[in-house]
């Protein structure tokens, strides 16, 4: 009878032994195991992503030459306006350099732009992240900011051999400082990724919003990066503040931020690699 009792409890005894063994396992071994399992799955994500690109390529091949010519014309116009913008940017950059040297100000961090395809998007209620197809092989550093045409995407949280993981700003784990666009005082506001409801755009929350900032769904305020902390350059779009209500302490407001819907269908992003770290 005692043997039978032990036989029934055997799965749980084994579970206890496994947990005890896991608890005393060195952290380095756990990190190594994690990296090993991640690298095991990385080729699957990369191959699936390349297959997706191939499908897109063949779908684009079906477009007529007429559409191609029209797209080329539009692209040429866009290039012309960008060339003007590049000239203006160069002039402004030279002006900034001149003022920095005159006033002996510390210079802004310079970045190298590393464009990367998105291999896998992984958005749950618990986390929001993407895997990109560039890693240590392209010198992607940990913590680097990631942007796209709509503003900030997030920051690099893991770097692997040929892939990197980017935590999105819609993820509850991301918290950074922003400012309301046009705020001459540049008062920082705390931004955190929030709830991401089904069939709706992602959202975030803001805290420590100054009392004079008024935002409502009909009169939204654009939230941009503050540049504080040195990770994100200033002025990049985070989202739009749609609600700002007085917090329970009465000293500040809290609010909701609507993020770009395109975060849910990203296919290409740009990693800002600080030149100082290279």
């Amino acid at each position, binding site marked *: 009878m005692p043997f039978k009792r032990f036989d029934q409890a055997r*799965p749980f005894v*084994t579970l206890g032994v496994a947990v005890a063994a896991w608890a005393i396992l060195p952290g380095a071994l756990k*990190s190594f195991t994690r990296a090993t*399992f991640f690298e095991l799955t990385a080729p699957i994500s990369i191959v699936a992503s390349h297959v997706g690109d191939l499908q897109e390529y063949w779908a684009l091949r079906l477009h007529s030459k007429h559409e191609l010519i029209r797209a080329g014309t539009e692209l040429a116009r866009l290039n012309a306006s960008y060339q003007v913008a590049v000239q203006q940017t160069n002039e402004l950059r030279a002006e900034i350099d001149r003022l920095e040297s005159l006033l002996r100000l510390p210079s802004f961090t310079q970045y190298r732009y590393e464009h990367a395809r998105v291999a896998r998007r*992984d958005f749950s209620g618990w*986390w929001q992240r993407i895997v990109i197809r560039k890693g240590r092989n392209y010198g992607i550093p940990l913590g680097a900011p990631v942007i796209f045409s709509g503003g900030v995407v997030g920051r690099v949280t893991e770097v692997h051999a040929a892939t990197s993981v980017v935590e999105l700003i819609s993820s509850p784990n991301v918290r950074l400082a922003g400012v309301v666009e046009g705020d001459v005082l540049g008062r920082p506001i705390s931004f955190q990724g929030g*709830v*991401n409801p*089904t069939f709706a755009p992602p959202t975030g929350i803001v805290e420590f919003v100054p009392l004079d900032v008024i935002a409502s769904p009909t009169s939204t305020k654009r939230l941009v990066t503050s540049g504080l902390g040195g990770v994100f350059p200033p002025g990049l779009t985070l989202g739009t503040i749609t609600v700002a209500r007085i917090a329970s302490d009465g000293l500040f407001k809290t609010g909701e931020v609507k993020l770009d819907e395109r975060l849910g269908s990203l296919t290409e992003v740009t990693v800002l690699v600080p030149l100082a770290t290279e």
Partner: protein
Amino acid sequence: MSTRRVFVLFGTLLVLWAIVAQLNHALTAIRVYLFAGALYVVAQALFQPLRTGLVISLLGGLLCDATTPVTFGTHAFLFVAAHAAVYHLRDRLPRDDAAGRIVMVLLVNLGLFLVFSFTQVHRSPAPAAIWPRLLVDLLCSQLFLALITPWFFALQHRALVLARASRENLA
């Protein structure tokens, strides 16, 4: 413990992971997430010897842990605990019946999803507001599992037969 069987069944878990990851990738635009944790556990717990099954569930858990931003070992612990519970009850469960297997998978997935949610929900700035989203995800996951479970059990069985590592009849 048969090493070949472990490799074959872990291979099927890798296939499952790839399919679920690609589906989740495609569903990001509508913000739906599929959680298929029970499939990493139930087949092994119902049909494999204790040690072999536990090792495969542990490997499946580590696979999920490595690709998610959770404390390394969270999935592994949950899967091994679920495995132990199902293994303990398996002689009293209708494991030869397809409907019974589906019900088992759905119940285990419900338990895993809820426990996992409670371990992660504290990270959210508004823990109460996150539950409607999680309930939609859970509903979609259960529907997905009800559809995929018979196929996945058959896949594991055929993989074992092809690798000549089958010991028990899953028909």
